[in-house]
């Protein structure tokens, strides 16, 4: 079973991203998928998480994820306020929306690191909401590239299931761009 935690801020669409990933993974023939928001009330701008579980067999557990296999960080500033590493297992995969170069993450040698400038990609493709770039869908592209668990084709299907044709198309263009531009660094021994 793969356990994924999405870190973002209220309004960034982490819950929707977690749902779309579950849907894409199901289309990828994983029989067990669940996605859950942080249980409880949510506030715009406040740090929050959502989670996705992906497994070959139907999932029987609904408790919170302790240590994820994969953490996706939609907002880099969260590293200052949330202990993202405490909920990511050693050797896990960390996927970050950032503009800082890979060397910045040298200290985190025990993780696989994937970086992508999802902000830039979103703005380039006119994906913004209330002036802020929409990064949840581009991060699905980064996820596909870095994890290899879901195909772009199935992400496209999941997008089109949730969005209008025009929106789905625009978001998928950004997903593809993010997929292309994601850089992965293997863990350091």
């Amino acid at each position: 079973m793969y356990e994924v935690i999405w870190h973002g801020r209220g309004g960034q669409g982490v819950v929707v991203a977690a749902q779309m990933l579950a849907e894409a993974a199901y289309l990828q023939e994983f029989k067990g998928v669940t996605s859950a928001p942080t249980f409880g009330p949510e506030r715009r701008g406040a740090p929050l998480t959502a989670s996705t579980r992906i497994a070959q067999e139907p999932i029987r557990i609904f408790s919170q994820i302790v240590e994820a296999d994969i953490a996706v960080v939609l907002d880099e500033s969260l590293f200052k306020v949330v202990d993202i590493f405490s909920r990511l297992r050693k050797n896990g995969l960390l996927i970050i929306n950032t503009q800082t170069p890979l060397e910045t993450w040298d200290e985190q040698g025990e993780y696989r690191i994937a970086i992508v400038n999802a902000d830039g990609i979103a703005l380039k493709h006119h994906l913004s909401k209330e002036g802020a770039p929409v990064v949840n869908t581009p991060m699905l592209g980064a996820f596909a590239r870095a994890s290899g668990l879901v195909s772009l084709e199935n992400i496209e299907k999941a997008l089109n299931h949730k969005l209008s044709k025009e929106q789905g198309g625009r978001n998928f263009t950004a997903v593809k761009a993010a997929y292309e531009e994601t850089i992965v660094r293997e863990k350091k021994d």
Partner: protein
Amino acid sequence: MSNVQIMTGNQAAAIGAKLSSVQVIAAYPITPQSQLAEILSQYIEGGELKAEYVRVEGEHSALTVCISASTVGARVFTATSANGLLYMHEQLHWAAGSRLPIVMCCVNRGVGAPWTIFNDQQDSISQRDTGWIQIYCRNNQEILDTVIQAYRIAEEVYAPVMVCYDGFVLSHTMMPVAIPDPELVKDFLPPYQAHTILSPEDPRTLNAVLFPWRRANSEGVLCDGYMEMRYKLQAALERSPAVIEETSRRFAEVFGRDHGGLSWGYRMEDAELVMTGMGSIASEAMQAADMLRDEGIKAGVVGIRVFRPFPAKTLKEAFRGAKGIVIFEKGISYGYEGALCSDLKAAFYGSENQAPAHNYIAGLGGRDVKARELADAARASWMEMQTGIVEKPTTWLNCYTG
């Protein structure tokens, strides 16, 4: 070709109600049920469901509308949680006493004070004695399927059914759910035919004040007294386990899914240490059983779906061979122990099964309960049982009690 969608428990319940062709819905939104009420009102507003949505100012009225609509022959649905359910308390008794086949979802949530919006099962457990059938679901597929089954059960025995599922844990978690073919549902669940319909053409006085003894009515016919009417409610619930099992069997034949009528078992063939519970915690316990099996402990799970009527006979059989029983409950009868624990022990009274039973109170107010923690608790009890600790006070799992 199965139609599988990834959805929340609330969506699954809404689809179940829609497929059951409910005619009247009255619900008052409350977390974590709100999404269910919203989806149903969307179905009606969008013309997908030909039903009347009656907006009300509170849960007492919501159930009162359902009672009235059911009395005039409609198939009705409502849903609530926690304090909303408790606000219905008087009308829960009324619905059961009136023998109306109302189906309600209770999206389980802890009860205030202090306020919590998070999950436990104190709300529905505390309504145990209102005369409602209670069924607890362990995943979203079971929620959808159980709502449909509930109408068949309710309309067969003339008793209301509460379909319970854990708030947030299931209500807000998305997972794959197969949506049954609407035509097959129509065959499985034909339109409701009420045995008595109150109408202006046939005016009646229903549920008038009864005297302690049976009495002749104005036409000289000897009628039931209060106690006979109440006995008939008890008799209906005593008869219902057979109906619930038959409904489950028939459902499995038509739709290919069997959630277990009254209870279900996991790795029970040679199990010595048996964990039990209701709802999502029983599902989580399956993983705990696997962990214990890996350590060489013969562990299994009995998941209890139906809490009222309490399936004592079935459970005596299900627990046969158990050398130790560990009961996980998301509620408690304050001053004693978990209600499920008491009922289960009572079922074994005088029987061959005198296995020690340990009771764990877990997950109150949404406190997370992991499979690992269930396994640790069950293992600790198993060790204690080996040393002869048959009875012990309730253990509060993951709780500072020092």
